[in-house]
């Protein structure tokens, strides 16, 4: 049972602040590190993996600082985001080499076990250069598991996997968490994270934006104000009808590029508003030409969490 602790950790590169005053504790079980690209997830994982010193604060594994201590890798397994491995060797040779680099007592047995866990025994004699993206991902997993680590860090492990491989990896991570290992994986996709992570840490623009179980994060994300852009037969009448609805908190008539107008609505109660809109249009005899949710990118959802 190992715990990784980050205490008021910041990391900057020149003038760019990649991670800003993050405090979190990762214990046994699966934790998802969620955030858009460029949020500082990889920097955080690099610090937890001992490759990067925090500019401020401390990153420790069971109280030991992680930076510049090769001995921590007896307890930590890392699955890097980048795909490149030693392409000129076979999957078996590579996993075996990793077992030997860990100076394990019986590297062949450890390599066989790790390859078995990721179900790559059938392809283990092929050169890594011939593997698909998903197969490479699984061999990467095997190298990280070969020494039976108590902490497993995975940087965007689902990238490039097909749905079946994704399910398999999700099951595997779930099992590893159930066994009492501390498993952390990063992702920018909420659905991916909420399926397996008991706990979610959200990073946005280098800041620790939210923390909790997936229900809590999901609630934070869905209960934010939603914005819609509506084009209709009578924008002004529709706008006045919408503002009378309690589910909407703001309406604006905005000129569009074609010289006409559109109605921009901010809805506070998403499900009430989507039911109210067709009813209002029907009552006032207004034809709805286009209803488009605006500002629905993941980044905007995350930005909302930060602003809270």
């Amino acid at each position, binding site marked *: 049972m190992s715990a990784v602790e980050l205490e008021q950790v910041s990391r900057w590169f020149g003038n*760019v602040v990649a991670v800003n005053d993050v405090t979190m504790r990762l214990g046994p079980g699966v934790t998802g590190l969620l955030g858009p690209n460029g949020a500082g997830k990889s920097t955080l994982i690099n610090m937890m993996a001992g490759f990067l010193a925090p500019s401020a604060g401390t990153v420790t594994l069971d109280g030991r600082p992680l930076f510049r201590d090769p001995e921590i890798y007896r307890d930590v397994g890392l699955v*890097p985001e980048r795909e490149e491995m030693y392409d000129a060797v076979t999957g078996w040779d590579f996993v075996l080499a*990793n077992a030997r680099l860990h100076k394990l007592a019986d590297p062949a047995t450890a390599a066989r076990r790790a390859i078995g866990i990721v179900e790559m025994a059938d392809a283990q004699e092929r050169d890594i250069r011939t593997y698909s993206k998903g197969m490479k991902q699984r061999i990467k997993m095997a190298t990280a598991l070969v020494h039976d680590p108590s902490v497993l860090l995975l940087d965007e492990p689902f990238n490039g996997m097909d749905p079946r491989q994704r399910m398999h990896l999700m099951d595997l991570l779930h099992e590893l968490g159930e066994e009492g290992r501390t498993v952390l994986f990063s992702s920018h996709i909420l659905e991916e994270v909420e399926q397996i992570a008991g706990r979610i840490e959200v990073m946005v623009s280098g800041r620790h934006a939210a923390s909790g179980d997936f229900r809590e994060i999901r609630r934070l994300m869905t209960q934010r104000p939603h914005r819609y852009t509506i084009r209709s037969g009578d924008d002004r009448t529709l706008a006045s009808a919408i503002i009378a609805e309690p589910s909407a908190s703001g309406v604006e008539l905005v000129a569009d590029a074609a010289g006409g107008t559109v109605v921009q609505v901010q809805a506070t109660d998403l499900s009430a508003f989507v039911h109210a809109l067709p009813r209002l249009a029907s009552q006032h005899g207004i034809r709805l030409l286009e209803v488009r949710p605006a500002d629905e990118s993941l980044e905007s959802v995350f930005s909302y969490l930060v602003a809270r």
Partner: protein
Amino acid sequence: MNATVATLTRRSLLGRKRTLVLLLLPLALLGLCTLARVLAGLDADIERELESSLAPGFLTAFGIAILMPLLGLIAGTGSIGPEIDEGSIVYLLAKPLSRYSIVVTKLVVAIGVVVVFGVLPVVVSGVVLTGAVGTLTVAFGVGALAAGVAYCAVFLLLAVLSRNAVVIGLIYALIWESLVGGIVPGAQALSVQQWSLAVVQRVLGDDAARLGVDAAVGFGTGLVLLVVVTVGATAYAGRRLQTIRLSEDA
């Protein structure tokens, strides 16, 4: 030293297309030497030249000044540079291994490659040119080895420090050592080529003057500089590997 790191390094170094270049360079040297020997058999003047200054001139110009820096560049940077660029070095770094042991192992593999593709061809060329394993052959063999070791250490460090190691290394080998060193006498004192030539000169002994081998630095200075640069570069590479950034993204 770590046998597994050595195996992975050897396989990735020799598994690339640059192995072809590793073969072409010594083959060109051997080809030219064989041609010189054949021509010497046809013309007595050429034979006299070959026995005095042509053979050492040839081994200096092609062996010490071209073959060794280029092989040192390919082997030294190739033993670690691509792994750093691609990020696969992470599989070595995320292990309970001393970073110094990783660097020393990679240096030993690079030196092994330089011995096979550089030092041995220089020795064989010496035999082809002189017809015997004499002092000249031994002197250039030892000099090539000294140069190869130092070049590997310097270029390995360069690969740890910069993603543009090959370009910087080429500029050093071709511009600094060959061009600037040829024009500005002071620059020769800071040149692996001249330090190793000092080793060649020492092994040749009294024959050096007759054979036209004249290094810009004395043997003592050359040897000390070779050792300091090799050990210093290796130690610094190990130190830098402890804090190397694995990705450029923030």
